[in-house]
């Protein structure tokens, strides 16, 4: 116990917890849209292009000495580009959306590997493939933490302003069109918010497990929430609670933090699903008993 308290006094560990908190708020809010609008594979596609962006940033900054192009900025550029392409392809009639997602997913990863091959390692030592793909939350710098907090605040503000329109769009797109809403623009904004969220989450759990953190807490919340707002609130609380519990577990067991967090949320998801099944069965039994006794 003493050792955990000692750990918590280390600035990098404090950054880890604060970065996780910022990301969990995003996962609770944006994850709700991802789940209700069935955009899990879209999120997967965008998430994997992040690897291309990280490789691109390492390559350009090592070969052309572009110091401002950090891996996070590279990741943002690629994720945003993927979001724009996916929004445009959603409306294209000659290509299926899941095909487009698959192409973007694979090409994003392949580009990352190629760029990483050509990084000039005499000038820059890039992060390992393992830490990019599976996360290294222990290396969240204070500067990175500030960027994450600002991004989280901007995304929360945008969602607060567009909440009603996003609700109509995700509940019934036809109704959104009839109401005169600019569904194409709203779609684009939603995809961009997902893209930025993916980049932020990749700092915590790595690229491979972005989907888990964005989707699972929101999916658990969906089982119990009566409204989208409630789903966002429950998703955020679950995401925060389970992630922090996962981080403590990682510290105690000396396991990789990102993977431990995802595993903890995964177990919680299975338990929640089982609990929901039992609850629904009991409800339906009570209803049929009531009907029979009438």
């Amino acid at each position, binding site marked *: 116990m003493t050792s955990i308290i000692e750990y918590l006094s280390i600035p990098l560990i404090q950054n880890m917890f604060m970065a996780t908190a910022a990301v969990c708020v995003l996962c609770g809010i944006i994850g709700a849209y991802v789940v*209700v609008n069935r955009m899990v594979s879209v999120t997967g596609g965008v998430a994997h292009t992040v690897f291309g962006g990280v490789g691109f940033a390492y390559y350009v900054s090592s070969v052309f000495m572009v110091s401002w192009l950090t891996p996070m900025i590279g990741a943002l550029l690629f994720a945003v580009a993927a979001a724009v392409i996916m929004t445009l392809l959603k409306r294209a009639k000659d290509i299926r959306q899941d095909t487009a997602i698959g192409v973007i997913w694979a090409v994003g990863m392949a580009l990352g590997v190629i760029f990483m091959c050509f990084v000039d390692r005499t000038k820059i030592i890039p992060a390992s493939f393992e830490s990019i793909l599976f996360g290294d939350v222990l290396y969240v710098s204070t500067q990175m933490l500030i960027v994450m907090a600002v991004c989280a605040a901007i995304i929360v503000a945008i969602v607060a*302003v567009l909440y*009603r*329109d996003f*609700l*109509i769009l*995700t*509940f*019934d797109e*036809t*109704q959104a*069109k*009839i*109401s*005169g*809403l*600019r569904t194409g623009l709203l779609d684009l904004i939603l995809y961009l918010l997902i893209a930025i969220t993916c980049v932020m989450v990749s700092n915590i759990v790595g690229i491979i497990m972005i989907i888990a953190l964005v989707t699972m807490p929101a999916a658990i919340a*969906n089982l119990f*929430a*009566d*409204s*989208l707002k*409630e*789903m966002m609130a429950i998703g955020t609380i679950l995401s925060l609670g389970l992630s922090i519990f996962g981080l403590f577990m990682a510290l105690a067991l000396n396991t990789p933090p990102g993977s431990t967090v995802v595993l903890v949320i995964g177990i919680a998801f299975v338990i929640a699903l089982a609990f929901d099944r039992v609850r629904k069965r009991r409800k339906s039994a009570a209803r049929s008993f009531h009907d029979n006794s009438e």
Partner: protein
Amino acid sequence: MSEVPVSFSGVTAGYGGAPVLRDISLELRDGDFLAVIGPNGGGKTTLLRVALGLLEPMEGETKVFGESPAKGAHRLGYVPQHGTFDRRYPIKAEEAVMTGLRDASRGFQLRYTEEEKESAERAIEMAGIGPFRGKRIGDLSGGQLQRVLIARALAGSPEAILLDEPTASLDPEMSSKVYEILRNINSKGIAVMLVTHDLDAMSQGVKRVACVNGRAIIGESPEITPEMFELGYGIRLGRESR
């Protein structure tokens, strides 16, 4: 002079270059209760999509209150089939009704006004969904959800309402409740265009009937004529069987 809610003039429309409707000329008049019948794939839903501006016709012109559907559709209420909804969406019945209040032509709105909330309350009352307004849509029966969708269409105080098979997969009791609501709506001067398979609808307050199967035959009464039976269902009726 009152405006015609919806008018189609020589409209040809379809998908992927293949017309489903050919040269349709039809009006939904002020205060009308028009039933549109016909077989599956005959173009009934396509007709609604054109009126709502969701589908651009290949030929002809559609007007909604004298304007293009893009400009006039916000004055219409639309009720889709309840079966097309994701029942797991976390939304209560009353919140679903409130989504019908949004009208982008009024500009950006962060919150609902008191007037809008009152309008939603009237819609909830008219559709009779008060007893289950606080329930999540996943906990509603098909008939209850259909009434929620009718309330949503009414929430924005439309001048005409377009419905796509509102009684599909409902039991007779629930269907008659839906028709009662539609008669009530129509009695308040709101024009109703009802796309349906249910021929019983003709005795439920319908004023005119149109049969659509690629082309359209429009009647001036709720009577389904032998020509309509032949166009819609391929059934030839003799004069004596009328």
